[in-house]
């Protein structure tokens, strides 16, 4: 899949620019957006997902230019999956209902069809025992896996994830990353914001490195991790990998 950004900027009210003049063209299967806290990663991902509008600039995904008007964007949101850091499941609905709700109310499935799709996914990802529990009764890892199942149930071509594991304990992190990897292997295109450098390096083919709202470095993740080209990215990597075994 290919994304193109042309002079994308974003500022909230009169504050400093959170994204500054990002222009890039990238082919990717799995793209990791990394960078220090506050560098604008979530903001960029939300723009790609059509959840917020850039202040200026153009976004082109697979040749389709995003039109920044609500009606178009609702359609765009329906075509991509989005997973939040945490608490993205509707907390008044069970796991299964979280998956079927968009199918029924957004994509026009019948109740039975939607239940079948949900059960298929729940079965496949080992979540059957959690299907009828409310989010509050599930572990963080189970919640995130159901959130991912909900996002892919509608068969999007692109899945966006904003730090899907950063609220999780290490052992739960892996079950979520495994699921993402499995979906990637099936050909789903993925853009994820992450602090899991191991995953970015091994499972993602491309990297965006954001720093204070600028896209400082981009390209193949292998190259990025073996020889970062800017002092900022080198410093970021050495800091984040400091305690790695």
């Amino acid at each position: 899949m290919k994304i193109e950004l042309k002079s994308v900027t974003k500022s909230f009210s009169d504050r400093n620019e959170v994204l500054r003049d990002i222009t890039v063209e990238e082919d990717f299967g799995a793209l990791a957006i990394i960078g220090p806290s506050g560098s604008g990663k979530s903001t960029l991902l939300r723009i790609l997902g059509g959840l917020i509008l850039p202040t200026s600039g153009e976004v082109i995904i697979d040749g389709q230019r995003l039109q920044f008007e609500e009606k178009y964007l609702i359609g765009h949101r329906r075509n991509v999956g989005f997973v939040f850091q945490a608490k993205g499941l509707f907390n008044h609905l069970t796991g299964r209902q979280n998956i079927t709700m968009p199918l029924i109310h957004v994509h026009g499935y019948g109740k039975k069809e939607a239940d079948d799709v949900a059960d298929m996914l729940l079965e496949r990802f080992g979540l059957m025992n959690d299907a009828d529990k409310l989010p509050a009764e599930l572990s963080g890892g189970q919640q995130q896996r159901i959130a991912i199942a909900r996002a892919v149930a509608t068969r999007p071509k692109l899945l966006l994830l904003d730090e899907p594991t950063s609220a999780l304990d290490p052992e739960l992190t892996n079950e979520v990353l495994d699921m993402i990897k499995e979906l990637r292997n099936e050909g789903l295109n993925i853009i994820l914001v992450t602090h899991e450098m191991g995953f970015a390096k091994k499972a993602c083919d491309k990297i965006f490195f954001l720093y204070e709202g600028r896209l400082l470095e981009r390209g193949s993740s292998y190259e990025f991790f073996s020889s970062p080209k800017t002092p900022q990215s080198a410093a970021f990597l050495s800091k984040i990998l400091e305690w790695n075994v």
Partner: protein
Amino acid sequence: MDIRKLFVKKENEKAKPAQVIVNMVLALAAIYLFFMLSLKRLDMKLDFSLLWKFRIRYLQGYKTTVMLSIVSLILSLVIGFISAIGSRSNILPISYISRIYVQFIRGTPMIMQVYLFFYIVGTAWGISNRFLAGVLILSIFEGAYISEIFRGGIESIDGTQLEAAKAIGLEPGQTMRLVILPQIIKRTLPSLAGQFASIIKDSSLLSLISVIELTQTSREVSATNFAVFEVYMFLGLLYLTLTFPISMFTKYLEKRFSYENRT
């Protein structure tokens, strides 16, 4: 056996059934004694049989109170919801009207509002049916409290829930219907149930404008037989038959609610 064990429960533990029974009886006995002593000082004997011949009127009054409360509950839910949404509106006149309404109602005594609205609603707008006037006054009053309950409910909804609704492609109307409303209802149900008990009690003030509900019925009865003690004790009992079950229900909802929100 340590006698204290009978009266004192352990910290962080529920009282045992035997403790509950013994102590509940004791508490009720103490209250009963206080009443009896008061009566003795006044040299009075209670005779509840005086009330029997008013049973038809009591039944009527009871029915009126129940109807008044139910209709007012429904109407005040509607008013409260509109006002809660309105107060958050970006359209300033709507927002200000909603806020002024809530402030005014919550900041002034109901008795004043009953009279004021009775003259506005009743006289100026020619609503002569007292039941209807009563329902309107009570609903306007309770609506302000319910508005605050709803506003709290709306504000307690996590921002990510709304963003998730957006992300899956819901339209604003669907977000309201499928995400916001169900969550608000679940969260506010205990408070709303509690408010229903308040509505029942507050409806007694409508006796001021001669809506013949329970309190007004009792006033009329006591004016004919002068059995003030009996009449008002019985009145309290009648209100309790309505509010006590609601209070139990509220407790149950609160418990369930806190369970569902544990993390």
